């Protein structure tokens, strides 16, 4: 997919709420309760869309998302707020990291774990519970491509290591095809909404 570079805007994260009382049990969004105290060992940002998306001109947008709160030295991906289809395909995404270099005989590296985390973060925020499981395939250059085939609609989303998120959507009923970059969550939600529309 040939698409122009996207521009990325920068913003600051919204601070987490404070003021839990002792032995206060929170059965949801624990990371918000804990974010102010700690955590030399936590991992992926797991909050929802009420936190502003980050971005800077020098860093890929997916990486900004993946690194939010990424202060762990161990690689685990929280799954509690993932939709079922994403939870199911997560092991397949992770297995892509084990591809051998030059897996496509064109010198491509395997996708990195950071990219997988970025993909998961984006899809986590997309808040689409009812999607079918996508096909998960490596893309040339170390990217990851997700492919959905739903009736006469097809959607491919490619996360590239350079930070771009590109898509190609096809409506075989009306013989329409469109490709572009995904600039923000609204774009992603809109595309996924179109797919299940």
């Amino acid at each position: 997919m040939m698409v122009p570079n996207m521009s990325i805007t920068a913003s600051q994260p919204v601070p987490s709420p404070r003021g839990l009382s002792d032995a206060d049990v929170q059965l949801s969004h624990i990371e918000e309760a804990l974010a102010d105290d700690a955590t030399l060992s936590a991992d992926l940002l797991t909050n929802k869309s009420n936190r502003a998306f980050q971005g800077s001109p020098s860093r890929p947008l997916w990486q900004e998302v993946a690194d939010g709160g990424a202060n762990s030295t161990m690689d685990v991906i929280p799954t509690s707020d993932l939709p079922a289809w994403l939870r199911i395909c997560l092991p397949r995404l992770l297995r892509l990291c084990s591809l051998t270099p030059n897996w496509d005989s064109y010198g491509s590296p395997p996708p990195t774990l950071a990219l997988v985390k970025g993909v998961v973060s984006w899809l986590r925020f997309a808040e689409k519970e009812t999607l079918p499981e996508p096909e998960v395939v490596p893309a040339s250059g170390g990217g990851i491509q997700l492919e959905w085939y739903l009736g006469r609609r097809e959607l491919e989303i490619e996360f590239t290591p350079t930070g771009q998120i590109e898509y190609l959507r096809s409506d075989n009923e009306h013989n329409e095809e469109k490709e572009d970059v995904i600039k923000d969550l609204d774009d992603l939600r809109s595309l996924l909404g179109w797919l299940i529309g």
Partner: protein
Amino acid sequence: MTARPSDLPDYEAPPVAEVVLGVNFTIPGGLKVYHIGLYRERIKSKFPKFQEQPPLPAQDVPAFSVFSGSPPLPRCWFLDESENRLIQIQADRFIHNWRKVTGKEEYPRYEVIRDEFVARWDEFCEFLVDQGVSKPILNACELAYVNHISKEACWTEPKDLGRLFSFLANDISGGAGHTLESVQCGLRFKLPGGNGHLNVSMTPAIRAQDQQEILRFDLSARGSLVSVDKAQLVEWFDGAREAIVRVFTSLTTKEAHLCWERET
């Protein structure tokens, strides 16, 4: 060093996957990027591997660099050959981690990791003195235990977690027609003696290395520190460790203790 309390619970096969000891500090004048390079040379024989990571956010006190105008230092990882041990340094943090890498490593026990932390911290402070850098002013410390409770080991479905954690009801199935998808929660305790707080969190996750489903059960103590006295620093860590082990034991059931081979 404080002796291990004789009544402190002990486990032959604890689910611990990572132990983290760290301090927050301020260095008047700041740590510069060339110090990181020089420090790396000094510890290269023990920690030959190096990685850069995004800096951890400021916690209780604003990062000094906010006021100094200097660009923020990255968080630098110095890893030993096995990558089981690593030192993390950024402008306001010094952290020592022990962690599992293959999953088969034996937990070396807190006392060993604590002594390594103290030795590394002393070396770092000596290095700063040698470089003519101002002494770090400690302001907080943290001890964290990260436990990975593997799905196949003690539980198969989220509803089984009621049998492992004493603060969950035995029946958390939600009743007929409902399927419990995941359990995620957090608790916060005051440490004894006003020594800070202990945060406990539970969250399901997938471990990247083997794509295994796990329940991540973290206990993280954090306290303010006004003294730079090493004995007091160690005393804080020992107290935090004791609190973590006692709270861990209190929050888990006898069935779970059997799974982790509790000895005392």
